[in-house]
């Protein structure tokens, strides 16, 4: 193995390892072992001159690894498969690294790998990590091309290059066309799908409590409304089949503004949940550009949200939705069969009271006065789930209460529907915005009352009023929280930890807001301010993108051709030629500074006929390297050897 390869192996492996490290946690374990084992072997083999697999074995390994990778992913082609196969091939790549060209290709692959990380995550940590990874890869690139100085100096130069690239980065950041939706329509398997589902059944919300993931962040233009008004509306469940609530049909409408109440404006940064609904405070009165308001006053995006988005919204926290619309009659429909006890109870209320408001109060009283328990781990419910819950188990989370309450209301001929969303949120003092987590997921009920329209009723608050005021931690019995890693377990460290968590979240929020939040819509807005309308450009834009792609492809092909015949370093040739001339000076043949190599060879060769052949051979090689095209590394090697061997002896005095 060549010494240069040995020298460069470790830095290149280091760059690969750093670039691939985030993937290591996602990859199947055999691929991780595959990669690490091969790399370790290559490294050890270069040190101890062990056996290196030949072409045949490499081909077998490549094909085997390829099929193995495909099999692991069930022969489905998606993002994970692609990255997995890339890792498999990367494990073998160092075996092929023999020439400078191989090393360059491997490094290009490292840059590619760094980018693939973005397909999974584009948060602040990942971006910082990518900077570090590119810094290392560039330093290695410098190293293998100019193997001089310390590695620290290479790193410094790499840093300088990256800093020099910053202005370009900023320009591209602002001007490079953003696309709507995901790249190539690729679906990403790994983006978290926790979030509120389009079906509501016992357990569908309480399972979210286990997740500390952030659902969205909300910044208010003015003051933040009180906790009893922080109901984040997401989805309305209209249809009930006896066990599960589902969304039912909605249609987009232009909703008239609501009467009564002042407005509150805010901006939401929504994490991707893979669903279409956006969240807004009860009741939203505007819809952001990427969504339309539905007739149940929810905001529905045009596409499933696979990337973080940011939107402005305006809501009214006190409102009156006005008259009952005929299409809202489905808020009364229930299955005919089942739950006889609950049906009887609701009928009895309907017979006793003539005012729907009174029925609502009666029902809430029913929840608060019978010993219902707010719990994450309710016992399973049998065939007549509502009966079972209301009269037997009496233990449940918000979805149980909302479901039972809506059922009772509908049986009592009061239009009722369940709203799914989030309740409350945690204020981050460093940035003054609310963090709403998946654990804040909540379900509540809306009933339609004459003259007041749709009114929000939260049956959970009748059972556990603390849920509304202080969040789920306060509402749940302490023994149910034992499995959770909560801040209060940290004792005296608690306040410091909380500060750090808040500061980190604020940093992430700024990142989301200023970097990731610069979406197609933002860019459109910004460019519109300087008089460029992207919307009307769409056609030309596609062509520009296509042309850019084509140009970069051509440039790539040309540069690949350049790599093919590595041009020898002419400075090296010059250095050895000076050595050669110095050797001739020792025997009295001095080259004048302005004398060309061929002329000198002729003069010197004529003077020392015994050296003539050697001098001409060396000069020919030198001329080939320094003045002709096509001097490659082999010629340089030969030239260096010849110069080293050249040892003229002075003519003995006669």
């Amino acid at each position: 193995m060549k010494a240069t390869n040995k020298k460069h192996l470790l830095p290149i492996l280091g760059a690969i390892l750093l670039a691939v490290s985030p993937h290591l946690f996602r990859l199947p374990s055999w691929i991780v072992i595959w990669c690490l084992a091969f790399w370790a072997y290559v490294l050890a083999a270069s040190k101890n001159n062990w056996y290196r697999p030949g072409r045949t074995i490499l081909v077998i390994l490549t094909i085997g690894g390829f099929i193995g990778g495909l099999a692991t992913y069930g022969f489905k082609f998606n993002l994970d498969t692609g990255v997995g196969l890339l890792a498999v091939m990367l494990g073998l790549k160092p075996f092929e690294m023999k020439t400078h060209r191989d090393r360059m290709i491997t490094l290009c692959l490292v840059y590619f790998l760094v980018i693939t990380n973005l397909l999974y995550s584009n948060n602040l940590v990942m971006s910082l990590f990518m900077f570090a990874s590119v810094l290392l890869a560039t330093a290695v690139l410098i190293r293998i091309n100019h193997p001089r100085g310390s590695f620290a100096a290479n790193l410094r130069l790499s840093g300088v290059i990256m800093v020099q690239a910053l202005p370009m980065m900023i320009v591209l950041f602002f001007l490079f066309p953003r696309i709507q939706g995901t790249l190539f329509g690729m679906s990403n398997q790994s983006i978290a799908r926790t979030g509120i589902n389009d079906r509501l059944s016992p357990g569908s919300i309480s399972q979210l409590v286990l997740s500390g993931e952030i659902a969205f962040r909300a910044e208010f233009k003015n003051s933040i409304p009180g906790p009893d008004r922080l109901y984040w509306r997401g989805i309305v469940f209209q249809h009930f089949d006896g066990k599960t609530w589902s969304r039912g049909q909605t249609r987009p409408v232009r909703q008239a503004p609501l009467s009564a109440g002042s407005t509150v404006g805010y901006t939401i940064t929504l994490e991707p949940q893979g669903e279409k609904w956006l969240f807004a405070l009860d009741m939203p009165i505007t819809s952001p550009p990427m969504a339309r308001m539905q007739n149940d006053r929810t905001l529905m995006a045009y596409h499933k949200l696979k990337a973080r988005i940011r939107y402005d919204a305006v809501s009214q926290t006190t409102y009156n939705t006005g008259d009952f619309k005929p299409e809202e009659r489905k808020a009364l429909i229930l299955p005919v069969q089942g739950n006889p006890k609950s049906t009887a109870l609701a009928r009895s209320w309907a017979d006793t009271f003539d005012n729907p408001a009174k029925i609502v109060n009666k029902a809430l009283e029913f929840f608060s006065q019978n010993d219902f328990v707010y719990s994450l781990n309710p016992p399973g419910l049998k065939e007549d789930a509502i009966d079972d819950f209301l009269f037997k188990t009496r233990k449940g989370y918000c979805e149980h209460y909302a479901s039972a309450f809506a059922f009772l209301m509908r049986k009592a001929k009061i239009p009722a529907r369940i709203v799914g969303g989030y309740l409350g949120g945690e204020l981050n003092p460093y940035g003054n915005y609310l963090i709403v987590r998946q654990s804040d997921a909540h379900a509540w009920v809306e009933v339609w009352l004459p003259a007041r329209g749709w009114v929000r009723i939260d049956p959970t608050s009748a059972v556990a009023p603390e849920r509304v005021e202080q969040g789920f931690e306060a509402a749940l019995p302490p023994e149910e929280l034992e499995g959770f890693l909560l801040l209060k377990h940290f004792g005296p460290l608690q306040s410091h930890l909380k500060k750090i968590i808040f500061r980190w979240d604020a940093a992430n929020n700024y990142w989301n807001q200023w970097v990731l939040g610069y979406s197609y819509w933002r860019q459109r807005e910004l460019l519109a301010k300087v008089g460029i309308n992207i919307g009307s450009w769409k056609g030309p834009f596609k062509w520009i993108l296509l042309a850019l792609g084509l140009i970069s492809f051509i440039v790539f092909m040309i540069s690949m051709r350049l790599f093919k015949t590595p041009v020898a370093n002419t400075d090296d040739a010059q250095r050895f030629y000076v050595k050669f001339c110095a050797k001739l000076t020792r025997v009295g043949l001095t080259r004048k500074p302005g004398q060309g190599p061929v002329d000198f060879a002729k003069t010197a060769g004529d003077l020392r006929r015994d050296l003539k052949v050697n001098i001409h051979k060396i000069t020919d090689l030198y001329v080939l390297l320094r003045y002709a095209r096509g001097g490659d590394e082999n010629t340089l090697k030969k030239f260096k050897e010849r110069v080293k061997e050249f040892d003229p002896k002075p003519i003995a005095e006669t």
Partner: protein
Amino acid sequence: MDVKFQNMVEQIGKVILGKREQIKLALTCLFAGGHLLIEDLPGIGKTTLAKVLSRCLGLNFRRIQCTSDMLPGDILGVSVFERKTSSFVFHPGPVFTQILLADEINRATPKTQSALLEAMEERQVTVEGKTRPLDKPFFIIATQNPMEQFGTFSLPESQLDRFLMRINLGYPNRSAEQKLLKQGEVKSTLFSTEPCLTPGEVLLIQKQIAKVHTSDALLEYVQDLLDFTRNAPHFSAGLSPRAGLAFLRAAKSHAFLQGRDHVLPEDLQKVMFWVVGHRLRSHDDRAELSRDRLENLLMEVPIP
């Protein structure tokens, strides 16, 4: 190419005796696409060299004998009113050819000399507001008597700069002159010279010469040479970028005619005096520098 080139040198050498170096230089200049200025005393063989060159390259040849009463129209052509068609018809002058021999160019007035400027640089002429392209290839071979002669107008520097090379012939040596005297008049040998190339081949060679490789190290040497003429105290003014380009072009042509596809420092040195000599003046008396002095000066520039 070098075999064909040797053959051509042989052919021409039969007519111009004992001047092989000058013949090679003249061919180098023409293949580089440059114009040639031949300077020497009368009767040395300037005109004969020009004629035999054009015959050998197989190109159309026209000749103008410059005199002090010559007008630009005599070279470029004029429009003449024709009665039959009642319109002006352009009658092209001798410049519409492939090789133009401007004999004793320094006898023409500056006005007439400058009429050639456009033709030399742009390879087109503008007569009466209309621009007409010239044939391809197009060379001007000019001859001149040294300035000391009576009744001449020395060429302006701007026009000198447009000649890629200036060569002088000098008296023949003893053996060559003996042969010449025995041989007598050369007219017959001149007309028996066969064309060695076609115009198409000349163009092709020019294209190949343009592709001759110049390495970075060599370009650095060219720049060092140019810088030297600009900064050294020996010269009144340094070489222009055009001169630099001409220098490189001549060196490429020289390398190609030696059968190489890359330029060596030696190529530059071989053509150096002939390309640079008429473009540089001494700082002290604004006179031209002798070949030895100039070459010694430029040999001080180390090859990088």
